[in-house]
């Protein structure tokens, strides 16, 4: 099918690049937007554009924010002494929902994943090490997912921090095997935070 001049097809192609959206759901979304109020379509398009223009990564932790530093990094009630390292922004959200954590986060945005092209040379280790030194972090909690890459990343970081004399803990099990933190319920995760152990 030639989609040069077909706006529906153009949108469908863009939508299928989203995670979990296939051709069929992309078409359903496109038809839904067409069937809705034209203001909705304009607002949706505008919101997407504004978001990608205004939101950036927090200069200190990597969370998405429309300011230079995110609300958590700017919150004086949160201790800088404990740092929770996660892979993705939604993993930090999951820990946050458990409401037991008083420290700050560090979002890697990637894992050590040589098969995916992220070897030790590409892995963003330096900014994390610098931050830990700069902010006087006493304990680093490694909350990467219990997957092959997540476990390897945790171990890699643990070794790096041991060398730097920082206490490292791994979030305790309870996070289901192979699962994403994102899908873990807050109670399990809260317990995991409290039951974390030294590595």
């Amino acid at each position, binding site marked *: 099918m030639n989609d040069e001049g077909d706006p529906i097809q153009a949108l469908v192609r863009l939508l299928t690049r989203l995670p979990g959206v296939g051709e069929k759901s992309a078409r359903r979304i496109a038809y839904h937007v067409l069937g809705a109020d034209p203001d909705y379509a304009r607002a949706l398009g505008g919101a997407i554009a504004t978001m990608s223009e205004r939101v950036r990564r927090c200069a200190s932790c990597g969370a998405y924010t429309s300011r230079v530093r995110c609300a958590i990094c700017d919150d004086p009630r949160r201790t800088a002494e404990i740092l929770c390292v996660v892979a993705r922004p939604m993993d930090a959200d999951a820990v946050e929902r458990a409401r037991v954590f008083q420290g700050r986060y560090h979002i890697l945005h990637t894992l*050590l*994943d*040589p*098969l995916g092209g992220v*070897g*030790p*040379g590409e*892995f963003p280790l330096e900014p994390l090490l610098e931050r830990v030194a700069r902010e006087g972090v006493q304990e680093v909690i490694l909350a990467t997912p219990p*997957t*092959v*890459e997540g*476990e*390897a*990343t945790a*171990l*890699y970081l643990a*070794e*790096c921090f041991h060398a730097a004399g920082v206490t490292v803990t791994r979030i305790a099990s309870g996070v289901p*095997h*192979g699962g994403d933190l994102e899908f873990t319920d807050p109670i399990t995760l809260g317990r995991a935070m409290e039951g974390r152990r030294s590595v």
Partner: protein
Amino acid sequence: MTPLRITELSVDGFRNLRDVKLLPSPGGNVLLGDNGHGKTSILEAIDYAASLRSFRGATRTQLIGHEAKAAQVLLRVAGPDPAREYRLRLGRTTREITLDGKRPERAVEYFAGAACVVFHPGDLDLVRGPPELRRRLLDRILVRAVDGYGEALKSYGKALRARNVLLRERHPDTRAIQAFDFPLARYGSALVRARSVLAHDLVPAARRALDEVALSPDAIELRYQPRASGDQVVFTAALAENLSRDLARRSTALGPHADDLAITWSGLPARIVASQGQTRALALALRLAELHVLEARTRAIPVLLLDDVSSELDRERTARLFKLVAALGAQVFVTTTDPAIAALLPGARRFTVTDGAVGPGDG
């Protein structure tokens, strides 16, 4: 024991098969046709949908028909549990699988529900070929019999490939390499443990099967030889100890990916001792042992797929095998070019395979 039964099979765009729809008999089924018309492809389509692997070692893209957009297979399977529907769609860049319309959550649930045992001409290599084929036999059984095995196998493979990529870098980073030792040892030791238990169960099953194919069970021995420990701590220590060697050879030497299921005949490797005929019989016995173990572990009799047996076994052995199959109570699919062979499986439903299409057989 309840046998698994394929009650419906639809295939399209898989190798040369076009619009194939089959309602098999719960007992014997014979696929009759000249060479090159698609008999093996039908068995491969069944087994691929059930095991997500080609028993000929073909890659996914090789299985898609040259003219087709995608290969599609539908299997309906009845057994001890409510009937299941397996759907597979292989595109050039995608693979979609559903079990009863949903993405399967656990490997064991998927694989156990449609367990097939295949015996095909390439199986001579089970005895003569490299260890990989014998490991694959163990893994084939275990993904069906042990909850979590399929997942552990996948994770182990990932950790192994990642570690090997790191070992091949120009300036290998030992800290990163050793970071992958943890998942490698964790999943690797789990694989070794499961395989060791299975190898233990396989011995009596193989004795029974050897007897069934008229080989002497006393002369033949199966032994799983893990080179790394089933204990995670010991496994980890061995990896650390081997690091300099791994760095030199630029890959991970130790682990279940390098193990073998050794087959000895009067104390010597079977591949050296066994004649051509004995090798065939031995390969068949291994497949029958697979069936017996699966039956015991999953509490259902697997479907038996016999490709071109008459080219593998003489008439007498074929007749004996068919008798045995009838006694096992398994649903069976047999391919052959020879109508006389078809006649050896009394009461079987016949299908003729012509140029990628299937029709009812005569008689």
